[in-house]
């Protein structure tokens, strides 16, 4: 989130799209409710189902799964055609005026941007991005047209790109009635004026698509056009589904990054530390500090073994091979016999992963598997799963019993980036241990083994600095916190925040973004529990928000060019001319050394060009998406209809497709799987359900796997509420045999058939919480979902796929 939960109270219009906040983040409704109660805010819910958020919304917008870019593109077009945008903001705080290379274009027949070429490695399309550039003058400065009329400026290109996204066209694609589209566009775009705040909140119904990253980009463009970034009550607000999915991402539990959103080194571009820093450090703005963060990270990793002479140990960091190593391909490598071992910490991909039944078989290729969890889950006990014969499975399985959340201490970062401390209330039962204890002991054993016996490049393990034991020989969490926060190498003193980090090896810091969260031992910021008694709900003395305890990022954009808040009723920061500095209710997102003028020209400090991107490209090595500068409507990989906007296009041509014959491609298959399916969560259960399906209170409330279908659909199928259904997808079709899952029919008016380009289509909704283990068992919706991914993130397309449904 760019903003935070309590900040919702300042919104005038809230759009919940691709996320059922009343069900999955119920307490968010407290703050949405406060905005409605206090200032008459309106809530719009855009979702394929009339869900619990829709039930309390002012306006419900039905939409076909997988067509968010059509919907949001229509909103962008509406804003531009009706001049609903915030003119001063767009002109000065975005790249609207930037001129783009004249060779850049978009082909409305093929749906491709300039530079498309075959990618034989992935059997897909890729882009040569050489024409996706700003025009520059002889000095290298970006050329601009402040009047926004040049046909090659970002603003005019944006207008042209979305001119096809008329309300009529959008309605044909999304199935949304025309009058509802108009109402929602009119209501949401009413926030495009100074003093009004529009808030877009979303979850996996935006991200889990083959065009998921572009969905988020479309949200960002809307928010930039309406001047909703940086202000109270605005923002692009990703509502996280797990208590520390934000924090685990910050700590880079992802193959492509190292802590603090720094890229993982690549063998081609980054053979040495000097190459890495040269290629990833822009000349201007915040990321020009990257060398300080990287060298401090290497000092945290390798301690005294990291010296200027050995590139601070850079050669011990693994280098990527240019291929994808996320969840979907990692399981494919397992299928192909390359992966021997799996360490799975509180994760359960055999329920939560895409095409989960296929993965069950792939795990037979493992030599060993370590599962660290509070309960026995499907992934650990795959050898007990349906169709498995234990006598034929050679995998050794180690299950390490872990502590529940209140049985350990440490911090978790919520969606609003608040790093909140959890105090330990009791010991874990029996021989269960906290994960921090487990990882410490596990690595000490490994390090000792390599010290004793040597091995292949033992230094990679033995040179890693690992000294976290307290006087009792047990893990001391303060030592870990200290290393993440950062300290001076010469005397061990804690740095106040990341401004104190250096690139010469004199400081060590495990994650620059967290620097300041544990900046003193007596009363660390993350443990603060002082509520604000008056003010705007920023709660600056409650925990610590990254970065620098800033509660709203890019908050320079909350003020006009003179430094006065656009909205005097909810001022975030402002320029104090008498003092000659920025002051306010939040920590200004402006480096102290910047002049007033420079801050006005660079409100988006993380970008080298300093302004928000309507047209988005990688500039000085920062940002940019692989599938185009503008979000473009492509169908999901499994789709019942052609691409109505671009006749020769279908699904995202750059998307990640790992399995041949995995998605619906032919008309015969479209007839075999005629219905549109989507998956979702329930408030009573959590993710793969391994924890909540073992709790009697929750199981009593939500006991069984079900599928929601419309009354019309039920009548066609001859099915009554409560009957058993059989649901099939292409993923369960093998060698002429069709597999299926079973689910109880929930016949409901919450799901309505949609008219897609004049044809009535049925939608099927399924929760994904069930598996074959635990107190409540049931079939997994993810047996049906395709393992295709977004080109930028490789997130699987869980939220839109095709299925067939029949009576059991």
């Amino acid at each position: 989130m760019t903003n935070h939960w309590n900040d919702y109270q300042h919104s005038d219009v809230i759009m919940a799209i691709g996320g059922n906040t009343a069900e999955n983040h119920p307490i968010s409704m407290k703050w949405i409710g406060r905005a409605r109660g206090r200032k008459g805010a309106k809530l719009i819910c855009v979702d394929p189902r009339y869900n619990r958020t829709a039930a309390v919304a002012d306006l419900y917008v039905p939409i076909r799964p997988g067509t968010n870019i059509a919907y949001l593109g229509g909103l962008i077009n509406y804003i531009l055609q009706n001049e609903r945008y915030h003119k001063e903001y767009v002109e000065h705080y975005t790249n609207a005026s930037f001129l783009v290379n004249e060779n850049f274009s978009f082909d409305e027949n093929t749906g491709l941007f300039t530079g498309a070429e075959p990618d034989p490695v992935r059997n897909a399309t890729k882009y040569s991005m050489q024409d996706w550039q700003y025009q520059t003058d002889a000095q290298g400065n970006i050329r601009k047209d402040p009047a926004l009329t040049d046909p090659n400026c970002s603003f005019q290109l944006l207008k042209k790109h979305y001119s096809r996204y008329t309300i009529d066209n959008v309605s044909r694609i999304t199935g949304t009635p025309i009058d509802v589209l108009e109402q929602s566009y009119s209501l949401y775009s009413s926030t495009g004026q100074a003093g009004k705040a529009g808030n877009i909140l979303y979850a996996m119904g935006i991200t889990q698509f083959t065009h998921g990253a572009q969905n988020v980009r479309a949200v960002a463009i809307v928010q930039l056009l309406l001047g909703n970034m940086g202000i109270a009550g605005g923002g692009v607000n990703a509502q996280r589904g797990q208590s520390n999915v934000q924090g685990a991402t910050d700590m880079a539990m992802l193959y492509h990054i190292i802590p603090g959103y720094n890229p993982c080194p690549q063998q081609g571009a980054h053979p040495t530390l000097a190459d890495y820093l040269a290629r990833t450090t822009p000349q201007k703005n915040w990321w020009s500090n990257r060398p300080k963060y990287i060298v401090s990270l290497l000092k945290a990793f390798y301690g005294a073994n990291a010296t200027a002479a050995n590139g601070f140990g850079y050669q011990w960091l693994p280098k990527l091979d240019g291929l994808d190593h996320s969840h979907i391909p990692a399981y494919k490598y397992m299928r192909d016999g390359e992966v021997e071992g799996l360490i799975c910490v509180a994760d359960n991909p055999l329920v939560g992963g895409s095409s989960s039944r296929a993965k069950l078989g792939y795990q037979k290729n493992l030599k060993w598997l370590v599962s660290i969890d509070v309960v026995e889950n499907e992934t650990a006990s795959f050898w007990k799963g349906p169709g498995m014969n234990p006598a034929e499975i050679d995998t050794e399985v180690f299950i390490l019993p872990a502590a529940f959340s209140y049985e350990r201490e440490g911090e978790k970062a919520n969606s609003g980036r608040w790093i909140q401390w959890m105090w330990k209330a009791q010991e874990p039962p029996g021989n269960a241990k906290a994960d921090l204890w487990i990882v410490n002991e596990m690595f000490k054993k490994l390090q000792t083994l390599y010290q004793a016996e040597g091995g292949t490049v033992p230094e990679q393990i033995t040179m890693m600095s690992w000294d976290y034991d307290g006087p009792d020989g047990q893990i001391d969490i303060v030592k870990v916190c200290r290393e993440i926060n950062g300290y001076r190498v010469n005397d061990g003193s804690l740095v106040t925040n990341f401004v104190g980090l250096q690139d010469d090896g004199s400081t060590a810091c495990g994650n620059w973004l967290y620097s300041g969260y544990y900046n003193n031992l007596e009363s660390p910021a993350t443990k603060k529990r002082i509520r604000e008694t008056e003010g705007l709900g920023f709660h600056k003395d409650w925990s610590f928000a990254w970065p620098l305890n800033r509660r709203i990022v890019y908050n320079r954009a909350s003020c006009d060019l003179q430094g006065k808040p656009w909205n005097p009723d909810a001022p975030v920061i402002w320029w104090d001319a008498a003092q000659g500095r920025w002051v306010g209710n939040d920590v200004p997102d402006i480096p102290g050394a910047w002049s007033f003028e420079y801050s006005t020209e660079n409100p988006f400090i993380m970008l080298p060009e300093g302004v928000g991107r309507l047209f988005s490209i990688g500039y000085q090595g920062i940002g940019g998406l692989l599938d185009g500068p503008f979000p473009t409507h492509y169908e999901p990989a499994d789709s019942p209809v052609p691409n109505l906007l671009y006749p020769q296009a279908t699904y995202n041509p750059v998307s990640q497709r790992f399995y041949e014959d995995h998605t619906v491609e032919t008309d015969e298959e479209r007839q075999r799987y005629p219905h549109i399916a989507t998956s979702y969560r329930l408030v009573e259960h959590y993710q793969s359900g391994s924890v909540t399906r073992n709790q009697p209170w929750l199981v009593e409330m939500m006991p069984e796997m079900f599928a929601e279908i419309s009354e019309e659909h039920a009548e066609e199928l001859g099915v009554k509420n409560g009957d058993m259904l059989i649901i099939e997808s292409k993923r369960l079709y093998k060698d002429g045999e069709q597999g299926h899952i079973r689910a109880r029919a929930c016949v409901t008016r919450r799901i309505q058939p949609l008219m897609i380009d004049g044809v009535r289509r049925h939608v099927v909704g399924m929760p994904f919480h069930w598996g074959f283990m635990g107190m409540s068992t049931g079939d997994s919706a993810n047996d049906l979902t395709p393992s295709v991914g977004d080109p930028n993130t490789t997130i699987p397309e869980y939220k839109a796929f095709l299925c067939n449904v029949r009576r059991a």
Partner: protein
Amino acid sequence: MDMTRRDFFKLTGATAAAAALTAVGVRKVAASTGEPLRIKYSKEYHTICTYCGVGCGIICHVQDGIIVNAEGDPDHPISEGTLCSKGSSIFNATYIYDEKGRPRLNPARLTNVLYRAPRSDRYEVRDWDWALTEIAKRIKDTRDRTLVQTVDVGGRTVTVNRTNAINWLGSAWCTGEENYLFHKMCRAMGVINLDHCARL
């Protein structure tokens, strides 16, 4: 507060409202009947709900080292004492009540290290030291055979020190400190197949 509890129920829909009722209900009973005994001699510990990304506050009441009650933290600025049905049930993750209303350990909770040998149809209970020693050996065996030390990139020898033979998954359920150490351990092993629920 500008909004009454009734408004909150209207806005949040039935389930969330029922959940809020659970949380508030406990306090109400505590005020009017003999119930306070359950938490009267207990110590309070503050924790954060382990489920979604809102980050609601929970108070655990602990007596003799055992949690006897868990409920919404009224001082918490986001949740202000309220919790959803999962958060309200968090006690149930570790304790269930027997027929006489006494708490006992939820039988689903793992309390021992378990090991399944190749081709076996059951788990055996083992101790920590054995398991950690054996796991270290498995990691070392796999890593030592599969680590790619250098590759040729356009005629230049590049040190890469990676293995494609070990996958690490997780975890959004764990703390920042835990994840930081997981990341360090992964990169020390040369692991590049690394992912968690942000992408799942």
